[in-house]
């Protein structure tokens, strides 16, 4: 119950982590099934329809429900700590964001149980995703599930922006913020500007499918290219939403374990902002083969290539952070260091794709699949593992097992290279993506086999990580504030795990790498910006949960409004949108309650602080 009503950012972070792990697991299992189907030519492990459902759900689940929440988990736990805040700007909305995200994800994945699964690719191009060509409820699950979960993500984005703008401790100016916080800031801004676009896209698609709209219905004047534009105006920034937090993690981890200040901090900030901005100007590079014409293709080619420059700045800054440092190979740092070359390999294939005439060959082949798994798995996922190992003690008060962590790293890393390196060549030799099988003797057979073996190794790696988590959870919580010994930022000045009020006294920040600076000056704790006093805390609330349940119910109501259940009562309830109305009523009712009911929160008094301080 405590977990259903919590508004504590650290607990919400852990909820995000659990949900993310669940969906990452589901997406991973789907990936393994995909790879098993492709292990040999003309395999019939799954049929064509199931395969299409698998890739669609794998892509959608991984991107929207696997990667995003784990990023949001780290942002939730760490960002307020790094800026010296007691909480996020909107604790209530934070909880609401999580629950809407979660119920959206559950709704989408219920499609497996109900038996009509989205099957038009994670991009849901039309007309394939229209009722004419995909007339089960699959794509409805996609539109409605993603809309609800996207709403949650959007709320999260606004929350983090407001938090970083308004909640920084005294002295924590923008140019003193740790890189992870900066990355979170820009990522949140991208969320803010990108998600409304896809929301509109999904609404249009939903209107077309459920209410007879004509946006993408060609006979009545609709246009299918419009969908692709809207999707990618969102979709490309989305990939930077994914990678920027990883960049932030790497910056923090690498500098910590090199015992060295981040090289070129201000150019790192500048590069992050620039990547964020350029990210919105390049969406059509996913559409070179659509036929936009040479002018558009040339413009978008060049715009896309430009992104290599700020990204390169970041890469070299990391390398030179390590240069002259004293590098310690913890599991976290191994993930972080291996991120650099691996991501570069993904990035440079991206630049190859950016050359439109060459992309006519690469597009929709396994070369692209290789590109984006190098950036996503070899970038984001390695980054997330680095971050999880690094901040695990702060989140749970226990250190993940290091030797096991290193074994996991090697298994996962080698498995990753085996799976995806070879896919570059598959693409160049002519294998398209999204094929449920392929003819023998085309030179694809052995490469696919290798790729599948690699995927299984990655699976074993992930299982080992879970084992590590389980083992660790039995260990006692006995860590100090700064278990790595080399912490540089504010989160390492407070107990692990963090007490609910974070900072007993709001710290006074005197420079970049605030904690490191104090340590170097011989201080054992941060100077305080205020005397010890009573701390105001927001009270827990079940409303966020209920509001999300309402949306969940409404989603089902809309989706099945036209179905015949063979049952008059059900037909009546759904057919007249009564279920949908009921769901919306719950949501708006809770919203109303929230608006009229004053929530004064509660206070933690100084005496209690002392006790709790001892306990932690």
């Amino acid at each position, binding site marked *: 119950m405590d977990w259903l009503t919590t508004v504590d950012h650290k607990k919400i972070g852990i909820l995000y982590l659990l949900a993310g792990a669940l969906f990452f697991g589901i997406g991973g299992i789907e990936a393994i099934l995909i790879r098993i189907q492709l292990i040999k030519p003309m395999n019939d492990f799954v049929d064509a329809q199931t395969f299409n459902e698998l890739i669609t759900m794998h892509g959608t689940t991984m991107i929207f429900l696997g990667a995003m929440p784990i990023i949001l988990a780290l942002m939730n736990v760490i960002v307020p700590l790094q800026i010296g805040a007691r909480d996020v*700007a909107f604790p209530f909305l934070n909880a609401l964001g999580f629950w809407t995200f979660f119920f959206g994800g559950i709704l989408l994945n219920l499609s497996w149980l109900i038996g009509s699964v989205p099957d038009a690719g994670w991009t849901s191009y039309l007309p394939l995703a229209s009722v004419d060509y995909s007339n089960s409820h699959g794509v409805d699950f996609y539109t409605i599930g993603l809309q609800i979960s996207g709403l949650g993500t959007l709320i999260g984005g*606004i929350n983090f922006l407001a938090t970083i703008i308004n909640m920084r401790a005294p002295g924590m100016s923008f140019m003193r913020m740790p890189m992870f916080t900066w990355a979170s800031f820009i990522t949140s801004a991208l969320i803010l500007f990108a998600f*409304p676009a896809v929301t509109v896209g999904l609404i*249009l698609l939903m209107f077309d499918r459920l209410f007879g709209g004509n946006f993408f219905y060609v006979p*009545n*004047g609709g246009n299918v290219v*419009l969908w692709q534009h809207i999707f990618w105006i969102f979709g490309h920034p989305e990939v930077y939403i994914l990678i920027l937090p990883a960049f932030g993690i790497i910056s923090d981890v690498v500098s910590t374990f090199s015992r060295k200040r981040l090289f070129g901090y201000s150019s790192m900030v500048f590069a992050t902002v620039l990547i964020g901005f350029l990210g919105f100007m390049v969406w059509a590079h996913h559409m070179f083969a659509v036929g936009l014409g040479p002018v558009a293709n040339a413009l978008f080619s060049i715009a896309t290539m430009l992104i290599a420059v700020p990204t390169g700045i970041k890469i070299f800054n990391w390398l030179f952070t390590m240069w002259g440092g004293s590098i310690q190979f913890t599991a976290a740092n191994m993930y972080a260091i291996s991120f650099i070359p691996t991501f570069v390999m993904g990035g440079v294939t991206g630049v190859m794709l950016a050359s439109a005439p060459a992309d006519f060959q690469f597009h929709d082949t396994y070369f692209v699949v290789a590109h984006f798994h190098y950036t996503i798995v070899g970038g984001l996922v390695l980054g997330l593992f680095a971050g999880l190992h690094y901040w695990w003690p702060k989140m749970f008060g226990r250190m993940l097992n290091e030797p096991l962590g290193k074994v996991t790293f090697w298994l996962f890393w080698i498995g990753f290279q085996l799976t995806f390196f070879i896919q570059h060549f598959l693409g160049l030799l002519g294998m398209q993506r999204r094929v449920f099988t392929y003819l023998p003797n085309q030179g694809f057979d052995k490469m696919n086999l290798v790729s599948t073996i690699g995927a299984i190794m990655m699976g074993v790696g992930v299982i080992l990580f879970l084992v590590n988590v389980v083992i660790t959870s039995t260990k006692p919580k006995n860590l100090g504030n700064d278990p790595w010994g080399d912490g540089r930022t504010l989160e390492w000045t407070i107990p692990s795990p963090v007490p609910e009020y974070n900072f007993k006294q709001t710290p006074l920040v005197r420079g970049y790498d605030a904690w490191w600076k104090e340590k170097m000056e011989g201080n054992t704790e941060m100077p305080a910006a205020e005397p010890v006093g009573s701390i105001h805390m927001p009270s827990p609330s079940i409303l966020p949960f209920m509001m999300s349940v309402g949306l969940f119910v409404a989603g089902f109501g809309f989706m099945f409004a036209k179905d015949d259940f063979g049952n008059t009562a059900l037909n009546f309830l759904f057919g007249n949108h009564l279920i949908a109305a009921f769901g919306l009523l719950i949501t708006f009712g809770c919203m109303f309650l929230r608006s009229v009911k004053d929530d*004064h929160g509660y206070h933690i008094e100084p005496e209690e602080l002392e006790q709790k301080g001892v306990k932690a």
Partner: protein
Amino acid sequence: MSAPAHHVDDQWPHEPEKATLEGRNKVIGFWLFLGGEAVLFGTLFATFLALRNQIGDGPSAAELFKLPMIATVTAILLVSSLTSVFAIQAMHRKEVKAMLNWLIVTVILGFCFLGMEIYEFVEYVHEGHTFTTSAFSSSFYTLVGFHGAHVAFGVAWISILIAQVRKKGLNLVTAPKVYVSAIYWHFIDVVWVFIFTVVYLMGKVG
């Protein structure tokens, strides 16, 4: 998100909506939200612009739209924006009564706008311009309807705030809420400026 329980209300600050951290959070958070709304409406406008000539067998924009009607609703919305500015000024001076009155005028104008819009839609449907007629009609109803839904939400929201201020008085908790709702209302007005320009007037021009 509540104000410090022990705030002394002896002096009404110059910008009450930003006098507390909660208030400042609310205001900046809301601005951020509006940034997102700008993209939302931008995408809807983009859709409309892409499809505005695809009228199929349905009536065209020039045939449908009636300028006097549009001019009237525009005037209503513009005036309501002005009245909501007055409400905020009253709020800053802590003239609760005046503020409430201006808010009530705003809500009434909002209702008038909605009423006329519904009347307009019904009229169009009679002329064979339904949501499913053509790509133009779908995108028209979606864009204008989204705006209408925003107006409806605003009307409901401001009404609740009126009741709340009546009950609990104007203080550092309610002030940011009123302020933010006014910003929202202006934003709706700004969107309407583009709607009457791009949808109606440009539709008339062809």
